[in-house]
């Protein structure tokens, strides 16, 4: 055991760091894109505060199409775009491009679902008080849904962590890359098992942290 860690410890630590880096960077960028997309989906719905049913239908379809592409295919498909953007299509940062493109529509749906949970009466009350649409979005929708958004965030992070394992197999680094190189290419099962254990620990930590913070943020249960 001690020998295993002295031999592979640094490698595994680097793998964890790379996985965490890819996951967090992707999550941040995908929320920058996905959060407004989710809000747009919600407000343009029939009966929404900026109802535009046709736009909503078209936009919904685009998101569905993006979501139905398997990540592996999308990753290969966007290689030219990644090259154009970063000058290379391999490495940690290059992986962020397909990861973000894939995660954004997913997050848009997660956000939409969270916003949908809000009682329409609260939105109507804000309208009656003379709130603008922007004020309704920023002061009602995004505030009342915080606990639900936090739970969605934890699901998103875990999903993205899963995606990073796939990019890892394609040379982007991280625990996925280690597991693939040692477990699949060199039949060194011990390293692969260590990677799996580390991934499980990461997922559990994320789940616990966000469950706790969502519960603490929710003013409805006290």
């Amino acid at each position, binding site marked *: 055991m001690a020998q295993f860690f002295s031999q592979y410890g640094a490698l595994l630590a680097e793998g964890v760091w790379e996985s965490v880096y890819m996951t967090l960077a992707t999550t941040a960028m995908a929320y920058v894109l996905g959060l407004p997309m989710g809000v747009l989906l919600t407000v343009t719905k029939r009966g929404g505060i900026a109802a535009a049913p046709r736009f909503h239908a078209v936009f919904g379809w685009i998101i569905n199409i993006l979501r139905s592409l398997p990540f592996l295919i999308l990753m290969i498909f966007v290689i030219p775009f990644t090259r154009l953007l970063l000058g290379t299509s391999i490495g940690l940062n290059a992986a962020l491009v397909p990861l973000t493109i894939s995660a954004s529509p997913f997050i848009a749906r997660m956000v939409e679902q969270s916003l949908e949970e809000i009682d329409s*009466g*609260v939105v109507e*009350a804000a309208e009656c008080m*003379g*709130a603008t649409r922007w004020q309704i979005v920023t002061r009602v929708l995004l505030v009342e849904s915080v606990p639900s958004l936090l739970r969605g965030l934890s699901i998103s992070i875990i999903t993205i962590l899963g995606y990073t394992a796939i990019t890892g197999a394609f040379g982007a680094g991280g625990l996925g890359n280690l597991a693939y190189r040692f477990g699949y290419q060199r039949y060194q099962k011990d390293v692969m098992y260590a990677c799996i254990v580390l991934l499980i620990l990461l997922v559990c930590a994320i789940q616990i942290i966000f469950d706790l913070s969502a519960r603490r943020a929710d*003013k409805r249960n006290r």
Partner: protein
Amino acid sequence: MIDIQNLTKVFNDGSSRVVALEDVSLRVENGEVFGIIGMSGAGKSTLLRCLSVLEKPTTGRVLLDGEDLAALSGGALRCARRKMGVVFQGYNLLMQKTVAENVAFPLKLEKGYDKQAVATRVQELLSLVGLADKASAYPAQLSGGQKQRVAIARALATRPEILLCDEPTSALDPLTTKAMLALLQDINRKLGVTILIITHELAVVKAICGRVAVISDGRLAETGEVTQVFTNPASAETRRLLGREE
């Protein structure tokens, strides 16, 4: 003053067509407590939603101080809305905000509001509704009656001319109902705010309303002084509400 002229509201969702209101005309004068009573499904909420511009009339007009509400949009509509406070049956409070934050909400919608002035006003409103000690509580920690008081304080924040209340007591027990009605009466007398109260309970109208409109199946059955209408009912609907069915 609210002037409802020949208001008709039809809900048309594809296959089904519901006439929720048909040719309703009535006038609510400044300073009065006006009741609208009718059985469930009579169209009371639809009427109130037309007044608060959550629905647009199919035909007819709703005038607030002579202004056609359906013709307003943007800033003018927001301005008109701030002259009306709405109290909903389901309270519709922000569940993630404290009582004080809920009451401050309409005040903070204004650009460049004065923080100190808002805090003072919130204190004032909470004292008015008897919840000064609950400022930092969350709605989930309050009883139904307390939540409705917060909703009333919030509706009064912008100093509206009129308070529109949709079944403000139907989720409350009789004792709490009594206190709530006393509060509304107090607000009417002290602040001179016109109150329009929608209900299906006779007792509510009898307790605080000066005039009443009886509505049945989307139509106005009769309007008049409460004492007059209830001692000398002119319509079958009123007699039914009074339990004196022929």
